């Protein structure tokens, strides 16, 4: 009975609204009295049929997906100037269709020809309701979430450079092989990476990247190099390969530290380098620490005075100092004295590490104990002393109340000890 009525409705609808009403929604609300009684074929039998139209006029219908996303994701020109929308946490355009499969939905139904084959052997498959699959929806949501935010691949704290996700302090691998020689066991660390510019007649301000790197095999062989290029990575590559061409061998004391304390200056970077015992570690400027790692020096103290920001000057000075080192044998030969070493781990027993090989030993004592600058500690410092600022006393020691308190408690200062003596009957 119902089917013919439906036909009539559809006819009516087509007449009134045509087929163009794509964006509008229609709903029929039939009142409770609109029961069809009697002859179904008579139109006049339809009583009290109400038609009402609902048109949802929202921006979802008017604006396309691209513009919609733009509203969410874009950053204003002013915001861009301030650097907004660059870092981690920025929203990204998400492909909401990702992970969805045609024909698969909430109701887990198998549609032959859509999401499953029509024939299985000779048998024709039919539509089939499968048990619900909650993982499907969860997977779609997971995929959506993974797209929505920027994620940087994290570097391990040991591989991270001096600061953040920047090149200085980071390892960039061994230099490129030259002929048959591949630099096995070598490693390169970027010490400085910056933009440099010069003015040209045609191009105006021409910018390039400048990379300053040090390479070494952690066993005494090391070199440093400077490379420039329009592209950052190629600047590093150029610097790395240049460093590989300037390798030099550095003599170390028992493969762990330098032979003696020394001073070296390049431009206004002044280095006071101190020989240290095994187990002391590297206590120095980060640049020098990285260079030491690549040379294979494990124990050293270094104080940088003057310019501690000029990486290239510091590096040059440090390499120069290491090259100028004098071995113990050379010292003994130059001064014509025995060189005696005493170590805590040997209970300070004296051991002769070098004796003059050509001349006889001098008879006059090398120095008197008051001559500080003549000691082995300071012999290479040329009278220079590194600046040690006085420790500041805490602010409250200047307050009047502190002075007052000191006066008040002064008479008690020896009492804890005196109390013990009194109790022992000794005072």
């Amino acid at each position: 009975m119902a089917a013919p009525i439906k036909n009539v409705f559809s006819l009516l609808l087509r007449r009134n609204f045509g087929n163009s009403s794509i964006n509008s929604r229609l709903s029929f609300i039939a009142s409770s009295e609109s029961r069809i009684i009697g002859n179904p074929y008579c139109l006049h039998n339809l009583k009290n049929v109400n038609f009402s139209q609902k048109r949802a006029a929202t921006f979802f219908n008017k604006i396309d997906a691209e513009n919609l996303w733009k509203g969410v994701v874009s950053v204003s020109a002013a915001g861009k100037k301030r650097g907004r929308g660059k870092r981690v946490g920025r929203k990204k355009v998400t492909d909401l269709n990702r992970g969805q499969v045609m024909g698969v939905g909430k109701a887990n139904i198998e549609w032959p020809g859509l999401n499953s084959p029509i024939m299985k052997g000779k048998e024709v498959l039919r539509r089939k309701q499968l048990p619900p699959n909650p993982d499907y929806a969860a997977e779609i949501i997971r995929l959506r979430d993974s797209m929505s935010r920027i994620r940087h691949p994290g570097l391990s704290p040991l591989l991270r450079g001096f600061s953040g996700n920047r090149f200085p302090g980071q390892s960039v691998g061994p230099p490129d092989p030259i002929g048959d020689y591949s630099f096995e066991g070598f490693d390169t660390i970027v010490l400085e990476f910056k933009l440099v510019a010069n003015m040209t007649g045609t191009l105006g301000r021409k910018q390039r990247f400048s990379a300053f790197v040090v390479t070494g095999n952690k066993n005494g062989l090391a070199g440093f190099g400077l490379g420039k290029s329009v592209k950052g990575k190629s600047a590093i590559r150029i610097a790395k390969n240049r460093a590989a061409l300037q390798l030099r061998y550095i003599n170390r004391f028992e493969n762990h530290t330098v032979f003696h304390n020394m001073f070296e200056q390049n431009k206004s970077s002044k280095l006071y380098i101190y020989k240290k015992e095994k187990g002391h570690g590297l206590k120095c400027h980060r640049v020098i620490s990285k260079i030491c790692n690549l040379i294979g020096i494990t124990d050293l103290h270094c104080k940088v005075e003057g310019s501690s920001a000029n990486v290239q000057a510091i590096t040059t000075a440090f390499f120069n100092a290491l090259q100028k080192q004098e071995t113990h044998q050379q010292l003994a030969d130059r001064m014509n004295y025995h060189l005696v070493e005493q170590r805590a781990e040997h209970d300070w027993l004296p051991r002769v590490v070098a004796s003059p090989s050509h001349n006889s030993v001098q008879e006059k004592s090398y120095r008197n104990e008051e001559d500080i600058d003549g000691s082995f500690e300071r012999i290479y410092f040329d009278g220079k002393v590194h600046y040690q600022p006085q420790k500041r006393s805490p602010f409250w020691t200047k307050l009047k109340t502190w002075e007052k308190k000191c006066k008040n408690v002064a008479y008690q200062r020896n009492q804890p000890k005196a109390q013990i003596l009194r109790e022992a009957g000794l005072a």
Partner: protein
Amino acid sequence: MLLSHLTRNLRFNSGATWCRKFSRTVLALNDTKNVSKYAMFFDKRVQHILTDITGRDEEKIYRPRYRDTAKPTYRLVTDKELEKLKSDAEEKIQKTLQIPPVLDEKPDVNVILSKDEALAEHDQFNYVFTDISYNIPHEKRTVTVREKDGTLRLATNDEHKRMIQVYFPGEGRKHYMPNMFTEKHLERLLEEGEYEYILDRACVQFDPDETDYIRVTRRVYEYIADRSDFMKLYSTRHFGAAAFFLTVQKNIDSFIAVLINSNLLHSAKSLIDVYYMVHNQEQGLPKEWSNLSDEEAIMMFAKQEAKDGSRIELALQVYKENVEREMSS
């Protein structure tokens, strides 16, 4: 930490302290007719030989033994100053190489001072009284125990030691015996070859005439003798002690063989000297002993006295062949 304790205590016990302290007890033993062979340890000639054969291996003496680290110091010195430094160092080395005494066990004390029956059942515990006044040597310090039944007696060796440790704690010495000296753990340490560590710590923990010290050290020396592992103790203060103990035990064949293998023929002969001094106290050294060369003396010992003479002869044979080969090449 422990190592530094050991070495510090070593310095504390250094010099003639041990000799003075324990030679007194030996003298007391001398009065009785039953003289122990271990008493010969304090004989001047024996001491001289034992210190002599200890050896001065630079590598061994200059091994890093101390865990405190500090900057090494360097000095430019003349020949004269170097001599002075070396003689000072020699004193220090002699102290560190002083041989811990090899002694008999201390006889246990069983002296009842009084028996006061009126005091019986006075308390649930024994009472220990210790004289803690200054300037008394610890071995002379009076420690008495009042027992529950009213008996007042002198403390036993063990009690005495424990009370001394309570009032005058020795550095690095534990109140109770460390587990490493129990049989189970000691064997494991021996297998690992930690002889020096065991002996050093035993020196800190025990007195040389204590039962446990004697048990531990003798076990180590015997273990070393089984393995012929003597050179691990070379240039340490325990080398002479091991040599003396094994000499008294008439167990020096492997020791002499090892000394010959290490080209220490004179040391081997000196050790045989000690052997005769300990075991032939009346007769003394064999006839014309001083005229014999090292090789002849050792050969004579191998034929007359040694338990396993063939072993010594074989070592001597190998030594001779090596010398000949060197001469010809």
